[in-house]
């Protein structure tokens, strides 16, 4: 891990999350530097999604501090809708709006949140679709697109707002294997453009090629973290080793 002099763009400290009696996050600290790509791995149920969702406050942490791009996310005075513009999120299940075209999906927040005029929003949305290689699918409804194309529209919807950070929650897990590559390619070009990214995924090849740091979570805690080579080849903890061994077998 490179020691950054600059303020981290994402700083989460002592994050706890309870769902009733279930203690899902047990004091997670995560700092992410600008332009860094952090990969989060861990067994199902270890709290990876919950952690991501706490970062943009889709989930309310039970305790802890979170700042993103200098904004105190948990301060009640923070305009959360304004803050969320700076944090793009991509979901496992795409969650495109089925009643709108691809272009409409991307335009909605540009119009309603960023306050762009119709023509301006349309221009920006078209440019975002271009970045994910779907300029020619602007008029298609989600139902008329493949899973990979839908996920790329979802990425376009997020990046159109020019976020400072992008959160990806298993972006390729719901895709047929032959469609995974197109989504990873878009993520890689995003990374090359300097986007700060936190990615929950089991795509080890992608992690190896693109991640600055891999974070291993288990039972609501970060067990260990480090450069991909270190985590994948010589993990310090037995639990990490066991998990890496498991996902290797796929």
């Amino acid at each position, binding site marked *: 891990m490179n020691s950054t002099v600059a303020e981290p763009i994402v700083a989460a400290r002592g994050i706890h999350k309870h769902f009733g009696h279930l203690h899902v996050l047990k004091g997670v600290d995560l700092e992410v530097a600008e332009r860094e790509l952090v990969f989060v791995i861990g067994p199902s149920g270890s709290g990876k999604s919950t952690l991501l969702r706490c970062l*943009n406050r*889709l989930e309310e942490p039970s305790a802890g501090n979170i700042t993103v791009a200098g904004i105190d996310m948990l301060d009640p005075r923070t305009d959360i*809708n*304004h*803050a*969320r*513009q700076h*944090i*793009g*999120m991509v*979901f496992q*299940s795409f*969650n*495109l*709006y*089925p*009643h709108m075209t691809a272009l409409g999906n991307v335009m*909605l*927040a540009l119009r*309603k*949140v*960023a306050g762009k005029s119709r023509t301006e929003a349309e221009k920006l949305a078209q440019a975002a679709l271009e970045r994910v290689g779907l300029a020619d699918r602007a008029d298609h409804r989600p*139902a008329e697109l493949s899973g990979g194309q839908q996920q790329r529209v*979802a990425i376009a*919807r*997020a990046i159109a*707002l020019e976020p400072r950070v992008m959160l990806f929650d298993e972006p390729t897990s719901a895709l047929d294997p032959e469609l995974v590559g197109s989504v990873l390619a878009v993520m890689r070009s995003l990374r090359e453009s300097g986007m700060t990214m936190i990615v929950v995924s089991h795509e080890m090849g992608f992690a190896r090629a693109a991640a600055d740091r891999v974070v291993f979570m288990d039972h609501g805690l970060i067990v260990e973290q480090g450069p991909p080579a270190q985590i994948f080849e010589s993990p310090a903890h037995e639990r990490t080793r066991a998990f890496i061994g498991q996902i290797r077998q796929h």
Partner: protein
Amino acid sequence: MSAWDRFLKTFFNTEVMAKYLPDILQGMVVTIELALLIVVSGIGAGLVLALIRSLAIRPVNWLIIFVVDLFRSLPPLVIIVLIYFGLPAAGISASAFVSTWLSLSLVLMSFAEEIFWAGITSISRGQWEAARSTGLSFGQTLFNVILPQALRLTVAPLTNRTIAITKGTALGTVVALHEILGMASSAVSNSYNPSPLMMAAAAYLVLFLPVVVGARWIEARFAWKR
């Protein structure tokens, strides 16, 4: 006189029909006015209640659920009678028209609220989360993302329910409302002949058959693939 002639003279007596046609037409006007008012206020109020319910304010939602369940369980006839004969006791007098309108609006409101609410809750949590994650507010998400999807799902059940309840305008006869059936029944007792009832049936067909056919068309149109 053959049996057939006797049948015609009894049920389709042209003299009686000609005499009471203006009454029946007058009743149709009342029925149309009443039905339109009920549709507008019942569906409008139902939608407003469903939107308020989505704010998830507990005591408010308990109240909504109580009111809605109440008006869905009581027979509409009972509500009409209660309002018409009960309100004067509370110092408010409501005409037969107002009583029937208010009663059936409350019933339609209650069913519509449940239909809208079912539509809203059937939209996946992922839709809310995706929209909110881009910075859309609760209200913006509700109006731009959730409702357009939910309303499509409600079209079919809502049209069916609306037809069923607006036909209930005939219940207004018990409080002497001069709608189609009311006019027909008094015509029957005045003429000692059931022909006006046949006219009433025809009048209901003329009014509601196009609505039923239209509903079929609307249903087909809104059943769109996801």
